[in-house]
């Protein structure tokens, strides 16, 4: 099995602070970490490798410092890391990002399985996995909660939709996106950390992956962010204290007003 796992570095918190004086959004001092959903993708790649043999490569697109998430992946058992970085990627939306990633994945051919986290903590679009599959002309199974088997050039997965689980089978190579239920990511071992520290990360530019410059970055992005602001979530809340009888009565009255009881 040759596995590719696509990962992203995201801010370690989704908390957005506003400077009380300037009313500006403050993002300074936010650390970059491996996107939580991608930790499940990395772990699953390692588990598939352990079950069926083979090797796993992690790919990320981002600035130079994003190489840290590749080292995080290597520390838990991924064999090598590829950093796709180029100023030409600046301003890429999901279409341009998935295209750029598809070029890197192409360069890593042959492969059997591409695993992505279902979405990222920051953008939460969930689009890059399915769009990557489309660029590659491969089937995509989103929201995988369990890989049931990999056999005879096919994969069988269970995925979670709103009101049911569906078991799907499809030929390899394929792309899957995984949800939290799939596994519990392991903690890196000391040996893993050492290996990660010493690992050589391949650094590829747009040209290295033969990416069409009109399809990446701002130019290759059909969608443009024209404004960003912090929403005001105002609840005219009231807080009630008292013994169980009083508070239960308060709740009962509220539920009654709302027609629940």
């Amino acid at each position, binding site marked *: 099995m040759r596995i590719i796992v696509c990962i992203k570095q995201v*801010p370690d918190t*989704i*908390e*957005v602070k506003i400077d009380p004086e*300037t009313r*500006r*959004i*403050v*993002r*300074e001092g936010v650390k*970059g970490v491996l996107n939580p959903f991608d930790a499940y993708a990395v772990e699953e790649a390692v588990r598939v490798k352990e079950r069926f043999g083979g090797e796993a490569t992690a790919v990320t697109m*981002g*600035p*130079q410092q994003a190489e840290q998430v590749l080292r995080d992946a290597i520390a838990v058992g991924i064999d090598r890391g590829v950093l796709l970085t180029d100023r030409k990627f*600046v*301003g*890429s939306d*999901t*279409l341009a990002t*998935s295209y750029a990633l598809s070029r890197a994945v192409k360069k890593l051919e042959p492969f059997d399985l591409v695993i992505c986290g279902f979405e990222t903590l*920051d953008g939460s679009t969930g*689009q890059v996995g399915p*769009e990557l599959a489309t*660029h590659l002309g491969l*089937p*995509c*199974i989103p929201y995988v909660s369990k890989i049931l088997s990999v056999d005879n050039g096919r994969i*069988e997965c269970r995925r979670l*939709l*709103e*009101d049911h*689980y*569906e*078991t799907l089978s499809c030929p390899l190579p394929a792309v899957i996106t995984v949800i*939290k*239920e799939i596994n519990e990511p392991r903690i890196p071992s000391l040996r893993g950390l050492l290996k990660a520290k010493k690992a050589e990360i391949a650094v590829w530019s747009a040209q290295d992956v033969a990416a069409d410059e009109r399809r990446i970055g*701002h*130019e290759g992005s*059909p*969608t*443009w*962010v*024209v*404004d*960003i602001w*912090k*929403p005001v979530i105002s*609840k*005219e*809340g*009231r*807080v009630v*204290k008292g013994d*169980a*009888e009083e*508070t*239960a009565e308060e*709740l*009962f009255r509220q539920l009654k007003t709302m027609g629940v*009881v």
Partner: protein
Amino acid sequence: MGLAIDREKCTLCGVCVEVCPFSALTNTGDRIEVSEACTLCGQCVKECPEKAISIEEKPQAPAADSAQYRGIWFFAEQRKGALIPATLELLSAALSMKQTLGEEVCGVLFGHQADGLADDLIKRGCEKVYLVDHPSLAEFQDEAYACILTHLVRKYKPGIVLASATMVGRAFIPSVACQLGTGLTADCTGVSIDPETKLLVQTRPTFGGNLMARILCRAHRPQMATVRPKMCDPAPVLPDGKGTVIREEYSSFPVCVSMTSVRRESLEQTVDLQSAEIIVSGGRGLGDGKNFDLLREFADLIGAAVGASRAAVDSGWIAYPHQVGQTGRTVKPKIYIACGISGAIQHLAGMQTSDYIIAINKDPDAPIFKVANLGIVGDIFEILPALMKKIRSAKGG
């Protein structure tokens, strides 16, 4: 192309570095450097006190035939032979955009023996329904849905294509947008038409709802978005709803299916958090998995679904499909009752837009109270039984 910083004007004050939501800017001491993390969101442009930053807009020429793309399309998602409520909300959003845009509203419906659903859409003001009726479309099939919608868009050239941001919509719409080479904005909480430019204005939360972004697709057609359920009321039946159903033959599409559905296992009713009107959610304060029985009992009594915080799921007290929050489901019920949930930011991200939030927690300083309409400081193990007693006696009487 990209972010341009006028070094003559720049005083290296560092405001741009501070405000960048993506930490893409660094002050090296003699200049501001822009990294690849920049998404050109324009936050720094807006905040720079010296007006030293601008976005070099490369001329993205409108598609030569963009004027040919007309009409507001929505994907009419059905489940088990019934339109989902989100479909009727989309129709309602499309009809209100028609007021500004003046173009026709068309539904795209895939299913089996779905004529009744097409008629229902028309009664509610949809002017055209493109119906593809075939046994293999009775339930969601990723590849067939993507292939057929892509081909219909190529054939009829709508200016706008909307779908619900359900798991189905978010699974196959990206493939459609990608095949068409156009933009797609995920999980919008608002869609409208700019009265001047007639462009589709897409508003969506980012950073778990802690930031909002406004997004345009200027030069590519169609403009595509998935829209979060429950953002507007469903379109009502009109006294004079008239329209046409256009049947498209399944066999006329080059559907190539490589994925086979082996089986489907329904989740118990109480887990369908997205459609639930009321959700009762439990967190660490429950103390033990078996205490979820109390929550289930309460939920049963008031006809609610059962949710949970990450802490409760990670402790193995309840299965993952119940999880609400950043790494679980995003929900927007009419009433959300948080029991013993402290309200970590990652949980708030999944429920803070609920219409009415009730929080019961022992800790008066719990952050959940900041988003609650009604906060109760107290012990759930005393309050819930007392409340249930009242509800039962009210029902009995």
